[in-house]
């Protein structure tokens, strides 16, 4: 087989310069055939949606933006052990630990907490290894249900604790639903 005849896609066809018949030459029939295809698609189910007004339903286990969890009493679970940063294959996570003061006992669960916790969303590949590595069940990619927003500046993709920590109203809701059970 010569190189000209090899078709990787399997759809290679030989062009023929066959002479057209009368019906083909007036083009009306072919145009009608094409319009019929268009008309058929008008009544089919649409494959597109009107994003951002409409949002497609996500899988329950879709890994999206990270969330630093709070426990039942609203305290931050993260203790800045660094295992997420260690496990991160993209090296997207950085953190700085600090010691909890006695008056902050209702804010942080352990005696050490993350003073600064940053994830570079440009580096993150959403593999979920940080979630697996976390010994304190502090980081989850499945709870926030938010897609990381696009932006114009590199700086805007570095998410600090202001964007990552679970919002208080969500924590309150969690606590209530847990106590009712």
């Amino acid at each position, binding site marked *: 087989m010569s190189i000209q005849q090899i078709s990787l896609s399997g759809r290679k066809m030989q062009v023929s310069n066959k002479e057209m018949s009368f019906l083909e030459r007036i083009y009306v029939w072919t145009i009608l055939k094409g319009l019929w295809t268009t008309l058929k698609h008008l009544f089919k189910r649409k494959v597109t949606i009107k994003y951002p007004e409409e949002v497609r339903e996500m899988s329950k286990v879709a890994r999206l933006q990270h969330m630093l969890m709070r426990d039942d009493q609203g305290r931050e679970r993260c203790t800045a052990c660094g295992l997420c940063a260690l496990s991160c294959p993209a090296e997207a996570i950085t953190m700085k630990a600090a010691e909890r003061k006695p008056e902050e006992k209702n804010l942080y669960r352990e005696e050490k907490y993350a003073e600064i916790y*940053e994830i570079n969303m440009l580096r993150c590949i959403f593999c979920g290894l940080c979630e697996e590595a976390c010994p304190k069940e502090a980081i989850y990619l499945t709870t926030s249900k938010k897609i990381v927003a696009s932006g114009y500046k590199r700086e805007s993709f570095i998410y600090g604790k202001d964007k990552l920590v679970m919002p208080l109203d969500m924590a309150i809701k969690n606590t209530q639903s847990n106590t009712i059970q």
Partner: protein
Amino acid sequence: MKVTIDGQSVEVEPGTTILQAARMIGGDLVPPAMCYYSKLKGSGGKCRCCLVEVAKGSDADPRPMPKLMASCVTGCMDGMEVNSKNSERVTEARKSVTEFLLINHPLDCPVCDQAGECNLQDLSFEHGKSETRFIEEKRTFEPENIGDKIQLHMNRCILCQRCTTLADQLTDKRVHGVLNRGDHAQISTCVSAAIDNEFSGNMIDVCPVGALTDKTFRFKSRVWFNKPFNAHRDCDKCCGKTTVWMFGNEIQRVTGRKDQYGEVEEFICNTCRFDKKEVSDWTIEGPKVFNKDSVINQNNYKRPLEKVIIETEKNILLGRDEDRVKISMSGVPLKNSNK
């Protein structure tokens, strides 16, 4: 004298213990040791981690020893045959010892500064079970302040008594001891006076767990994010040979140089350990060599790294200057940074 451990023979001097003989051979058969410390006289015999099976007492008396022996305090005899790694009994016993040690040890490795270079972590990784059978409450102590250089976490202590042995050996007057008995036993500065001896900082290096940690390094970084370098300086009190643990250009911690069994080669003074945290204080010899699978070796490179020069058009690399600016954690500026 000839001793055979796990089928491997070694010639030793009279008075050598089984553990020392095993370390002469090296490799997998070396029993783990939590309380024995070769640089401390009279240490050992407390943790029972180093149990071995003596299959043949000696040439003169070939009967096996009926019970497992603590290898760090049992002397070698001529013609002795010892089973360490090979013996099922030993593995089982070490597993039980590990379980006992972990009964009162809190599971706060994510908080503990020792995590990553902790002997108990290594021991339980090799010999421990992943679940606990202990349902009672762990013993706890009131937090106690023993000075501004050393942090004491009594809850984490496994009572190996290395630190008190060190205090006995290095200090002139005894300020550090074991109080009470049994479950209530605790190490403490007897009159709760701060330890001001010039070599007291070595208790941090000697401690196999996170009971005694460096207060100047407290929560600063995890062990595996630091790059260790061997360094030395002229010190009039000690040898001045240390390991400095760096993060970028910042020295975060100074420790003694530890060998493969986690024992320091030489004790260093408190000035070197706590007060000299500037790069200009030290002559850096080179990166410290670690085992390939050590967590401390994570992201460290033994090979000297040469600067890569990419020969390409300048315009292509224009965007890189933007990347070089530190955009992450701007709240913590790089020490000695150019920008």
